[in-house]
């Protein structure tokens, strides 16, 4: 059974249609990139899955349970965590407090300490800066913190919106390195919005290409770089 299922999803903002008739499934442990030009509906899609944006139509399921209609905090409790675009860390709180925020919903207190240790091991810089205000971290460090914070809710599925936004290529390498090793360690299912298809191809995984609120291609990320699909999606006539 698919870990995550999206069926006939539509998202509208007033009269503007951001997503229509979108369907796909994600297998457990899979790494799925969502790519496409600005306005393709990538962030709306993640918003709809995480509950931040209300779907106009359609059904979203995780492990066969219906998520659509629940608020973001209830979806997070079900084990689906979101790393929002622009990181949105809690700047006035310390790094450690940022990490502890996500654990408020958990009952397994002992495991929280282990997870904090895991996060600090994966991102040693966070351990060094544990008592510093999170707003004082660099962009790359804030991205690491946002990922670590999402992990602290003990998710099964993690959505990451544009992790490379505004970061130097070398830092992006590091972010993806950590993300992939954490995925392997925790058996996570990852859905990542990534503008750069070459980046997605280099990291590896499946890729869905969106345009105008629809899926225009779905396949192995490495195959996309070679094909003309990308330029078609970015520059071709609207479907």
């Amino acid at each position, binding site marked *: 059974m698919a870990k995550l299922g999206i069926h006939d999803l539509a998202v509208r903002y007033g009269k503007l249609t951001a997503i229509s008739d979108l369907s796909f499934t994600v297998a457990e442990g899979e790494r799925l990139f969502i790519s496409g030009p600005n306005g393709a509906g990538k962030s709306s899609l993640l918003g709809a899955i995480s509950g*931040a944006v209300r779907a106009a139509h359609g059904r979203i399921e995780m492990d066969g349970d219906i998520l659509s209609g629940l608020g973001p*905090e209830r979806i997070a409790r079900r084990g689906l965590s979101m790393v929002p675009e622009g990181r*949105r860390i809690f700047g006035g709180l310390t790094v*450690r407090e940022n990490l502890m925020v996500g654990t*408020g919903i958990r009952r397994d207190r002992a495991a929280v300490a282990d997870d904090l240790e895991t996060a600090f091991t994966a991102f040693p810089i966070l351990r060094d800066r544990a008592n510093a205000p999170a707003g004082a971290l660099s962009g790359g460090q804030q991205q690491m913190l946002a990922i670590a914070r999402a992990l602290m809710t003990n998710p099964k599925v993690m959505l990451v919106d544009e992790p490379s936004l505004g970061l130097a290529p070398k830092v992006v390498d590091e972010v993806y390195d950590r993300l992939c090793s954490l995925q392997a360690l925790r058996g996570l299912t990852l859905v990542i919005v990534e503008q750069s298809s070459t980046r997605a191809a280099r990291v590896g995984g499946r890729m869905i290409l969106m345009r105008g609120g629809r899926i225009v291609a779905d396949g192995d990320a490495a195959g996309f770089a070679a094909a003309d699909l990308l330029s078609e999606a970015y520059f071709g006539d609207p479907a």
Partner: protein
Amino acid sequence: MITQHRIRRRMAATTPVLLALLLLAFVALTLAFGDRAAGRMASETLIRVTLVVGFWIFAGNSGVISFGHAAFACVGAYVSAWTTLNPAMKATLLPGLPPALAEAHWHVLPAALTAGLVAAALALGTGAAILRLSGIAASIATFAFLAMVNTIWANWTPVTGGTSSVVGLARYVTPWVALGWAVAAILAASLYAASASGLALRATREDEVAASASGIDQYRHRLLAYTLSAFFCGVGGALAGHFIGVINPDGFYLSLTFLMLAMLVVGGIGSLSGAVVGVLAVSLAVEALVRLEKGFTLGATTFALPPGSQEIIIALAMILVLVFRPAGLMAGREIMLPARWVTGRGTSQN
């Protein structure tokens, strides 16, 4: 080895203790060296600490400015009056009281606790509606709530006495009684701030979207803080009533709202220490200005500030703080012992 984290926690635990000691020193010094008026100022200041620290539990952690907390003080003051006043007096002053209240003649301590509980219950009920709104809309709704409470209290004459004052409250509030409640409020505030709910609420203050993505139910934590916060404002109102002995609805309206806000802004809304320091700073400044308004004699001439300059100068001070030190005197920091004091002897500090 003591970890950095343990050191931080120990340091944070010293904050309420140091704040309590600061207030204790304030009372002791005022009583030892001040006149009678200074003693009254000390009581008044500590009552305000209870009110403003109560206010901070909600406003400081949630980042939502409430204009409604003076209403909780109003309700608290009247609940304590209803339950403690001499029944014979209530029969003439407040003929509309239900029999249970009309005959009540309680001790002041259970009355103060009840005042807090009734204010908290009112907060739970009204907050359930108000706190679903986002930031600025919630603030405006609290203001509407304040206006409603004031109007009801001013017009429900058989029960509240209307705009005429209720007199004869037992004047039991000494600086020491007020100190006890102020310290209780500080302890509750620092326990709440250190709790999981306090952290969750501060996260929503920083970023609502990211907080809900972290599984935080903003509304629930806001409501909890609002209720706890109202408890101490209710108690503070009861203390204020029993300090002067006379209450009327306008004593708990716009000027109190402004004063509480000014104190929080001057001290800094970002920390508990800011709330306490703000009350002390503003109260001492007000006291100094009141004395200047009365005039002082220097040689053959008497100098006096024109009446009313006190309010203007406090408002100016608030504006100056907002301009030059927008985060307040404490700028979000807490008063705490330095790391080397809490690690103990012979412990390395790595």
